[in-house]
């Protein structure tokens, strides 16, 4: 899996591409924690190019979120593909995460 970084409207946007499974979730976890420790309190994770997610990957989102919320931070997910949406739905992440349709929407919801 590849992780792309870009800054838009003053916020960090992380784009995930490929499969987020047990193997790639480790790398994803390291990245997200580094970003949070680096001072980013509000950022977007763009899943438009993520084909697949497994529970290991889901774990990372939980970890990230739990790290951010006490500090008043926020992470917004956007552009989920159908299969990924289904999994998120099954595990009930829609009630915990801010999941929006497009990157622009996500960015607008921040700040």
């Amino acid at each position, binding site marked *: 899996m590849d992780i792309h970084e870009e800054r838009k409207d003053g916020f960090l946007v992380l784009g995930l591409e490929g499969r987020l*499974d*047990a193997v790639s979730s480790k790398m994803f976890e390291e990245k997200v924690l580094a970003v949070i420790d680096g001072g980013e309190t509000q950022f977007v994770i763009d899943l438009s190019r993520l084909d*697949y997610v*497994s529970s290991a990957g889901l774990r990372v989102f939980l970890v990230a979120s*739990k790290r951010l919320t006490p500090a008043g931070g926020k992470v917004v997910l956007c552009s989920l593909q159908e299969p990924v949406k289904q999994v998120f739905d*099954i*595990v009930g992440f829609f*009630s915990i995460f801010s999941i929006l349709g497009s990157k622009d929407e996500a960015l607008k919801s921040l700040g």
Partner: protein
Amino acid sequence: MTRASLFTKTLVLIVVLFGIIASGTSILSGWNLYRNLTQEYQSKGVAIAKSIADSSVELLLNADVSTIQSVVDQFTEIEGVSYVIVFDGQGEAVTHTFVPTVPGDVLELQRRTRTQAVSGAAAINDLSIEGTGDFLDVALPILAGVAGYVHVGMDRSLIRSRIWSAVATQQELMFVIFLLSVLAAYTLVNRISQPLKQLAGHAGKLATQDFSEPATGPSDIDHLPQKSHDEVGKLAESFITMEIALRQSVRELKETTAAKERIESELKIARDIQMSMVPKTFPPFPNRPEFDLYATLIPAREVGGDFYDFFFIDDNHLCFAIGDVSGKGIPAALFMAVTRTLFRTTASKVSRPDSILSLLNLEMCQNNDTCMFVTVFCAVLDIRTGEVEYSNGGHNLPYLISHGETAPLKNTGGMALGFTESVTYRTEKIVLRTGDGLFLYTDGVTEAMDEEGNQFSEPCLAEFLHQANGSSATEIIRGAVDQVKNHSGGAPQSDDITALTLKYLLTAGETTSETIVVELKNNLSEIERLARIADDFGRRHRLNAETSHNVKVALDEILTNIISYAYDDAEEHIIVVRPSLDQGKLTVEVEDDGRPFNPLNVPEPDTKQLLEVRPIGGLGIHVVRKLIDELEYRRQNDKNILTMKLKVKEA
């Protein structure tokens, strides 16, 4: 600069040499002169003293001092005589030539002389008179001292000045000789170093010269061999010879290189032509999901004569072939081009493989002056039924991969094409079942050599193909190529590596049943491989995307759990996955030999929990439950067996 350093060296040598000679001679001659002059002086002084003494006896006795003075005055005119003083019998100075007065040192000396025992000989003393100089005092008693004493003072400084002037003259001469030597050395060294300098300059220019061009006029050192009849001339001669040879070599090299470049560029063009003659677009027929076809041609360094081809004869019949022209190089490539073109035209006329080959052979024999030949395997697939009719013309028989079994096809007995017109070709028929594959290849695969000359060999290929059960055509080809490359190591590729794989999937409209067995190692990376196999399976059976995805997700979760948690040791374990499709129902069995674990016993998480209180784990099984219709677990023979069942939806 050679001249400066050579000359400087010589100069230094001369200087040192002359320095040694000069100092040596001056010291030697100075010393000699000193000794001789001193001796002369002494004898002179003694002679004068004697003369005065003898002539003064009477005068002294008569006290005729002014005559003694006249006598004495004459002697002072002799060179080297500084003073004369005559003492009478009482020791009083009666005659002297001192101005302004007799020095105390002299009086002192006389007193001493008087006290000494009188002998007939002269007493010679070194006397140093302050303010006047150094003298050699010769004292002689007159009439045994009774009449008195005479002292003759010889001027030492005269000796010194004589020595200095002699040494100086010598040194002047030395200096003149030195200068002449320097001049001579300069001339001589110049004679040597001038040509050397020219040579050096010439050599320097050599580096910047373009030897490919003919010499632009006579060399500037051409005259040297005639001019210098010594080692320098020889050197110059060698230089000139070398230069000529060099020029020649460079010219030849240039020509050779040019020729080589020409050939290389032509070869490149030939290779490009060769590559353009084989279809390279994959997947070639995306709208025909009934089969999976992939091929590759990796040309060797030298252009070869391999080819493959595939095309639809009609909507339901796919013709595919592979061939290998004898030999290598441009002739082979050209021949291949001809063959391929003829093949296409022939296949458009007739459709049975044996006919194709016969006709092709006839055509090729006709226009074959060079007696080249080509081995061809040609086949036609009926897509609806999976029937494959094939004919072989001297080529290596392709491998049939069917349900875990790998074996070469039965030969049809035909010979390579282009030899002779009287060859009979036959056709054989096989039926491909779903999932079966055909692996076509040329000997570039099996005969690929490593650095020690060991061939990749057919058994190795068969082994690989056996292992590749379940992989896609692309995977099989790529895998095979990898295997060959691994085997070759650093050895250069001697022949084209050509291979074509055709996998038969479902016939149109039917969903047939299939069961495959996949063995995985307990390594997280294996999950991706399984996913690919799943994709392939799904493609074959035209399962819809959602089904495929769900299966993959479920398998991911299950396998992750097993790999992560099932084993206590660090050993390698095999996990077996058996997907099976039967009448619209997909069953996937996962078997592992790890700890006993029933995932169904894992409690459901509360998905309504707030983020803060949500535990991190346990989601995987939840997902699996949600995606899979039926889940069954049993422990059997020390193994966990989890069975997942899904209803399949058609795409």
